[in-house]
């Protein structure tokens, strides 16, 4: 909620009964994130229930390639940091810096997706598919759902960069950048849980 106040406050207009549209949208997005948290929580719960049901197929310990996962974790954490730098540039009114840092974030996000796809393809080649066991169904669905979120974020980021080039920093684009960066940090937080629950606990 803190963000609602800080960002809502400085472009609140004093006209009576006309609500601060950007502030409302920011609050609405927080609520959307709550629903997304519950969706991921449901997927996590399913994964935890099913993670030992390997049905004679490969286990996580045999499949997970920890160095790659650590690399993608660093990439995603860095992209969260660069998306923060983008917001910082925006607050200083530097449009070029904003678009530049968003581009860096997008490249890092794409690299993360690339590594994830590599991991998935590799596993499928070893015969560990969605159809192999309940554990792998839950694994691909949970990790894939996060990857899908990141991909949607990438499309969104590209669209927003185009809008920023056309319109510059306005209250509307400012709110859009804030929402996107919130979403990006959220994906980062989900990944930390994923890294812990799926990969670390999987190889322990």
């Amino acid at each position, binding site marked *: 909620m803190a963000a609602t106040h800080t960002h809502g406050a400085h472009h609140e207009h004093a006209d009576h009964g006309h609500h601060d549209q950007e502030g*409302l949208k920011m609050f609405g997005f927080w609520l959307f994130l*709550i*629903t997304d948290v*519950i969706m991921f929580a449901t997927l996590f*719960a399913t994964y935890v229930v099913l993670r030992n049901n390997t049905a004679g197929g490969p286990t996580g310990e045999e499949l997970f390639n920890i160095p790659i996962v650590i690399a993608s974790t660093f990439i995603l954490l860095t992209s969260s940091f660069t998306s923060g730098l983008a917001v910082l540039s925006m607050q200083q009114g530097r449009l070029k810096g904003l678009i530049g840092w968003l581009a860096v974030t997008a490249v890092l996000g794409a690299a993360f997706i690339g590594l994830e796809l590599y991991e998935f393809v590799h596993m499928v080649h070893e015969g560990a598919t969605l*159809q192999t066991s309940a554990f792998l*169904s839950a694994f691909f669905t949970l990790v894939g759902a996060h990857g899908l979120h990141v991909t949607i974020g990438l499309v969104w980021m590209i669209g927003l960069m185009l809008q920023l080039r056309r319109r510059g920093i306005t209250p509307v684009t400012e709110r859009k950048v804030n929402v996107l960066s919130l979403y990006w940090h959220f994906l980062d937080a989900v990944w930390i849980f994923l890294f812990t629950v799926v990969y670390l606990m999987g190889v322990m």
Partner: protein
Amino acid sequence: MDTIKQFASEFFVTGDPLILGAQVSIGLTMVAIVFVLSYFRKWGWLWREWLTTVDHKRIGIMYVICSILMLFRGGVDALLMRTQLALPGMEFLHADHYNQIFTTHGVIMILFMAMPLMFGLFNIVIPLQIGARDVAFPFLNSLSFWLFFWGAMLFNMSFVIGGSPDAGWLAYPPLSGLEGSPGVGQNFYIWGIQISGIGSLMTGINFIVTILKMRAPGMGLMKMPMFTWSTLASCLTIILAFPILTITLFLLFMDRYFGAHFFTLDAGGNPMMYINLIWMWGHPEVYIVILPAFGIFSEIVSTFAKKTLFGYKSMVFALMSISIASFFTWAHHFFTMGSGANVNAFFAVTTMIIAIPTGVKIFNWLFTMYRGRIKFTTPMMWTISFIPCFVVGGMTGVMLSVAPADFQFHNSYFLIAHFHQVLIGGVAFGFFAGLTYWWPKMFGFKLHEGLGKWAFWLWNIGFYVCFMPQYFLGLDGMTRRMYTYDFDMGWGPLNLVSTVGGFLMGIGFLFQVWQIAHSIKFMQKDTTGDPWDGRTLEWSIPSPAPLYNFATVPTVSETDDWWATKQRRAAGVPDAPAPALEPIHMPKHSGIPFVMSFFWFVAGFGFVFDWLHFVIPGLAGVAICMLVRSFQYDTDYYIPVDEVRRTEAALRGGKA
């Protein structure tokens, strides 16, 4: 030619005279709609005034119309089932067809009748009741409606195209898995509910923001009308429960479409996981639909007893505690599935706890009526009849929550009687009461009271005649989902009585339709805007409300602010001078919600039949619509002061 014939025979459901009749009538209705719209040149009007509208009042009306149509379809399902069960050994429906009908009856009544009727009332009432000009996100609101609409269309289509789902309204695997249900029916279930469920989730978000952020100045949380409180409680429950449904259906889809093993019996799948997940949504869902009904009863009781609601704070507390407790009861739906004594005991106790706040509310309504000057209007009669009905339903619910006793009642007609008693007696009666109560606000005229009372008595008597025998049938050992039974079971007479009751409710529905038709034909315009002598803000403006609702945003000082204003006026205290009019900020109409939801429908249809040439264009269309919307910046406009002044003058007969 032969390939077309073969395709058609697989695509359309054939070979049953009942379904053939439905196909013919659907075809004729569609031809009639197209003809009427073309003949009267109404296509442009339909598009501009309704399909693209973002006005919450019109969206509300569309929700109400759809839910009445769905009540008809769900009701016909119910009567078909009751006819099949009327006598032992009846041969009216086949077993398969019976399975499809009880499945669609449940899904339609909860998700496509109760939910949209509730959202319709939210849309019509909430902004007016809190002194707002619109909901927080009007575009999203329209999108929610159209997602519901196209999701419902997809689900209903299964009746004539491909075959309906037949694994029960919650579709337990492995029965709903690919091996148990190989046809497309279960796919219709997944996508029909999934698409409309996204809409419900967004409605929940929309109304929470509306209520928390858009109240008129002075309306603190503890001055909100009770219907607004109940909506808030319901929407909070929606945003916590519906994501679970989305994921659960998605996982079932993964099993059926991609051969995953979440809920299968082989390769490590766990069907119990589905049952836990679906009830983690399903139990809160029944509170999602009943909490707004509680709000409606509160408004109606205080209006027609001419008294302030008794125990306002305890009412708020009860609403909130019910919405929280509803998340801790889900396992009572499967006490008999071997969870163990401790788990069963925990969920038995949490279930019983809900009876406490519910009891608080019942007493509050009774104390509000006590020494009130009660006016027996139709909304008030629905409210009064709800109380004994809900008390009985609640008590049988407590009986079911006693885990050891539940081993006797489980999946029997006792259970059927219980949940119909709370869902018809609570939710349906509540929404009928609310619809009658707010009808003049929607359309500017009241519904005919006499016909409304006929409908009321037929529904009520029919209800008891239908469901009381089912308690005894359940205790006699009749289980649910049975499509026929032998003469020597001795269940014949009670079933016959029950069927008669079902048809009485059906006649009650016909009276409601007659009531609406009669009231439209002989309408008496309500010029006051306040036909019931109401208490809350929505009655302070003309009916139907103008596009912008309030010409000047009201300032609130008391709980029933409009009532207080009227009291002050009666005592001769002049109103505070109205602030000067200002241009009003409004959202522009948009066709994107309709088009985008239609693309969802196309994609859903493709998923049902595994046709990628539908799925890919459908999903691409959805994505393009989202991008187009994202690039739109010019989405609102201002209504100039002159126009506001003209509208107000016309509405108030030149008095403004």
